[in-house]
């Protein structure tokens, strides 16, 4: 019996014991008997015709078992990598994406051959010896330029490189702009980022020819999706595939896709009869694992002279890279355009989004995925409006905030937000930051020639993906429900099996807290099992801040069934009517007689031995449930940042970061806080340091951690966090997602703060990341 219920407590994480001791098992840690290694030969050209591949020098090298090309893998029945999201009404083209290029390479890093050898050193040596002839073709890396006449063409069946043209419309935008007193406009470049999970991708395939069964260990956020997609593009049917994601070292979206290398190791294992492992280097990760963001946005916002927003209009070029990745098309459309109302009442919205192929690494979901782009766009425009009207940006926000609601609120894009109280979050963050004092101090410092800026942002996001009917309606190739099994062993210990796949977010602990809290067992008596299609029930994975919001619904369904069965058995054992049985803190008892109880462990033993069960009761104490949410969930928050810019050098000193986030009730406040910290820093990274650079030939200039600036510990202040709590009715626990919130709020908060600081210098735009050089140049340009 538990004395303190674990829900809402900062319980220390169960998973940490193996991680702090180094005995966790990531994919690259695995070694199988007879295992050999694969290396991938990658194109050094961004666009070229392959004129020939000579594998003989490599094939003769020490340790080499086989060298294979795109023709070989196709001949073995391996098809193109499928795109799992085709947005309707957008004329989406899905050009062939061979796992290994056959006649044309389309980005630097495109695979052209694989080498299998005894050790990874041997495989890499031999990969260098594969002689590939290339005939370079014209290259285009910029999404807008790629649509122009005369631009290089990537795919024969995709004219002007336009993969899709998608629109979202609500209200009458033309009329709103006609009626406006003021219009602000901006070209925003939401730059390309590299997710950079600290664990590089890795895949290990073992083909069992006797049973015709495949096991793939892979760094994945969603092993069930990988299994499903492998059944479509390999010769192995789904029931003969087991996908295991062991400990996964971060993903941030980059481990959602089913990648070509998954197919390659499967093929290589089938060809060689050996388990085959591939682990990417960081340089390969930067070239061949998906990138994020990369929008060029032309945005206009119309308002009255009092600051009331009338409409938003935008045209966006979303760079998709050279091929469609698993969720590529959904990110800049459904997850972006539908959120253009943000937390504001905006009756008229229109956006055209062009998804465009370029000679760059494929782009897919990166933490926030579409929603940071939407929030940045809107929050930047609101600040520009405030500036134009000489109003306080907080007042403009207040004027336009959607009033508090608890029973759904429909916005112009058609979404129905679940619950929200945006003013409460804003009030709280302003209070915590002492906004008035900040403005006063800013005024004084400006008089001393110091450039201090204050950024304020209010945001909401769509997450907890989501209702499966909506998934189908918007072209997602799978469901978005979750399932779980709660199983009591005879000794009273509990196993929870889930289809989601946490990879750092701590659900091994928070899910155990839910089970322990609901069933009155000790948290140490609960094991949470995930990441193995051979052991866990079907689920669609961990992304879109959905794991807790959706899977907890499935867990609660199974828990209720356990309680119901427990009541029935307890009534039988206590010789009472089921209706008279109470369940509290792990004990079943007859109303009014709490001292004479059957514990849930007693019931588990009785159910598992089945010596004396009520009639029509099956043995065992186990239940499964599925949960298909009725809506998405919409967490929200308000953030404040204070920066000081050194006008002489362009350097930005981030002095304070204050965040109020609302994700409903906290199961484990320690873990919620950790998610917010990490999210904020990734968003700050985009604002200040991170950005991919390609040259005109499509060479990735930021191709290692020497060139791509990840946030470091000493760049950052200590964060000041607080919360409001607005539960959702979408799931039984009222919880919303928190994995992506920080990232969505923090980029525009920092950006707005820096522009606020630069206002006296006449600067109101600098393309991200706001490096000292860019800021310094903008100041020089404005002053000259």
């Amino acid at each position, binding site marked *: 019996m538990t004395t303190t219920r674990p829900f809402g407590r900062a319980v*220390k*994480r169960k*998973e*940490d*014991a*193996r*991680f*702090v*001791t*180094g*005995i*966790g*098992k*990531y994919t*690259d*840690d695995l*070694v199988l008997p007879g295992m050999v290694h694969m290396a991938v030969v990658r194109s050094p050209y961004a666009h070229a015709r392959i004129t020939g591949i000579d594998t003989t020098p490599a094939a003769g090298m020490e340790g080499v078992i086989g060298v294979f090309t795109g023709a070989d893998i196709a001949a073995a029945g391996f098809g193109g990598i499928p795109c799992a999201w085709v947005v309707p009404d957008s004329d989406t083209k899905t050009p062939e994406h061979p796992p290994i290029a056959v006649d044309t390479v389309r980005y630097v890093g495109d695979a052209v051959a694989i080498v299998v050898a005894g*050790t990874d*050193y041997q495989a890499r040596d031999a990969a260098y010896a594969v002689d590939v002839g290339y005939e370079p073709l014209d290259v285009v890396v910029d999404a807008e330029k790629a649509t122009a006449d005369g631009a290089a063409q990537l795919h024969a069946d995709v004219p002007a490189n336009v993969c899709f043209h998608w629109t979202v419309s609500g209200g009458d935008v033309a009329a709103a702009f006609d009626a406006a007193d003021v219009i602000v406009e901006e070209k925003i470049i939401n730059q390309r980022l590299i997710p*950079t*999970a*600290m*664990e*590089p991708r890795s895949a290990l395939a073992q083909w069992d020819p006797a049973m015709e069964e495949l096991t793939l260990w892979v760094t994945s956020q969603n092993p069930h999706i990988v299994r499903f997609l492998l059944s479509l593009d390999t010769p192995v049917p789904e029931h003969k595939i087991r996908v295991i994601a062991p*400990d*996964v*070292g*971060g993903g*941030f979206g980059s481990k959602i896709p089913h990648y070509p290398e998954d197919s390659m190791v499967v093929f290589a294992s089938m060809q060689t009869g050996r388990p085959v492992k591939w682990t990417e*280097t*960081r*340089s390969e990760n930067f070239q061949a694992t998906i990138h994020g963001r990369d929008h060029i946005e032309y945005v206009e916002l119309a308002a009255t002279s009092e600051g009331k927003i009338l409409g938003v209009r935008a045209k966006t070029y979303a760079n998709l890279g050279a091929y469609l990745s698993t969720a590529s098309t959904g990110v800049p459309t459904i997850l972006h355009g539908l959120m253009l109302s943000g937390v504001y009442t905006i009756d008229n919205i229109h956006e055209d989004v062009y998804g465009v192929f370029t000679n760059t690494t494929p782009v897919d979901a990166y933490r926030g995925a579409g929603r940071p782009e939407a929030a940045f766009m809107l929050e930047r425009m609101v600040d520009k409006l405030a500036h134009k009207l000489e109003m306080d940006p907080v007042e403009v926000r207040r004027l336009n905030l959607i009033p508090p609601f608890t029973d759904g609120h429909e916005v112009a894009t058609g979404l129905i937000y679940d619950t929200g109280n945006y003013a409460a979050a804003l009030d709280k963050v302003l209070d915590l930051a002492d906004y008035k004092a900040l403005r006063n101090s800013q005024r004084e410092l400006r008089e001393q020639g110091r450039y201090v800026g204050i950024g304020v942002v209010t945001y909401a996001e769509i997450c907890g993906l989501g209702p499966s009917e909506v998934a189908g309606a918007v072209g997602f190739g799978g469901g978005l429900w979750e399932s779980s099994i709660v199983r009591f062993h005879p000794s009273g210990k509990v196993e929870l099996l889930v289809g989601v796949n946490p*990879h*750092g*977010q*701590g659900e091994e602990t928070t899910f155990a807290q839910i089970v322990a809290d609901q069933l009155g067992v000790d948290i140490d008596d609960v094991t949470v099992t995930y990441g193995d299609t051979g052991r866990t029930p079907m689920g669609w994975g961990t992304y879109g801040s959905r794991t807790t919001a959706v899977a907890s619904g499935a867990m609660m369904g199974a828990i209720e069934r356990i309680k119901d069965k427990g009541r029935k058995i307890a009534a039988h054992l206590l010789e009472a009517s089921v209706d008279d049985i109470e369940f509290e803190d792990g004990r079943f008892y007859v109303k009014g007689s709490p001292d004479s109880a059957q514990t849930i462990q007693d019931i588990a033993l009785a159910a598992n031995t089945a010596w004396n069960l009520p009639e029509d009761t099956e043995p065992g104490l186990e239940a499964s449930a599925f949960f298909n949410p009725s809506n998405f969930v919409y967490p929200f928050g308000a953030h404040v940042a204070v920066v000081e810019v050194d006008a002489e050098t362009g350097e930005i000193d981030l002095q304070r970061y204050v965040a109020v986030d609302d994700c409903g009730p906290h199961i484990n406040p*320690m*873990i919620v*806080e*950790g998610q917010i*910290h*990490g*999210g*904020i*820093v*990734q968003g700050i990274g985009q604002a200040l340091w991170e950005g991919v650079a390609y040259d005109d030939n499509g060479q990735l200039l930021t191709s*290692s*951690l*020497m060139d791509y600036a*990840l*946030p*470091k*510990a*000493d760049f*950052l202040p*200590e*964060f000041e966090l607080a919360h409001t709590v607005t539960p959702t009715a979408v799931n039984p626990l009222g919880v919303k997602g928190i994995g992506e919130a920080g990232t969505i709020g923090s980029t525009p908060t920092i950006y707005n703060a820096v522009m606020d600081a630069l206002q006296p210098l006449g600067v109101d735009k600098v393309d991200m990341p706001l490096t000292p050089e860019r800021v310094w140049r903008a100041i020089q340009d404005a002053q000259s």
Partner: protein
Amino acid sequence: MRVSVTINGTSYEREVEARLLLVDFIRDHIGLTGTNIGCDTGQCGSCTIHLDGNAVKSCMILAVQADGGTVTTIEGIRSNGKLHPMQEAFREKHGLQCGFCTPGMIMTATKIVEAHPGASDAEIRHALEGNLCRCTGYENIVRAIRHAGAEATPHSPFEGDETHTHSTLRDAEHRAAARGTAT
């Protein structure tokens, strides 16, 4: 080439290629996979170990350069089955999420506290410049190191578990550089 290294108190002697990285020796030849590889340019620090008492990035040094040396990895800092105070602190302060950078962080952190038990947050943050984490935003890592530093006593495992107990990270870098490697 023949290489002889003591790792976590056990002596290993192996015939290796001269080009073999120490991290690959530790992971693939000895089978201690707690030391992770997060990059190929010495930036991320996931592979940080202690070599002769100094925190060293084991992807930036050859196995043969460690010949005759004493290595401690994340698997070797527990004593008598008990977690090292830094391991405890990371768990206590939620200083990890996915866990991949954690072994390197902890191996660096023990040296920070060893050199400066009362290090300020700013000093801790500066000393972490060679270790990247993408999950935590560092705040709880800093808290964990501060906490472990505050708990450190003269007889705690921060001192005396290895040959050099008073070296700073900077010293470690200089020494590694003197050995012809970078950290």
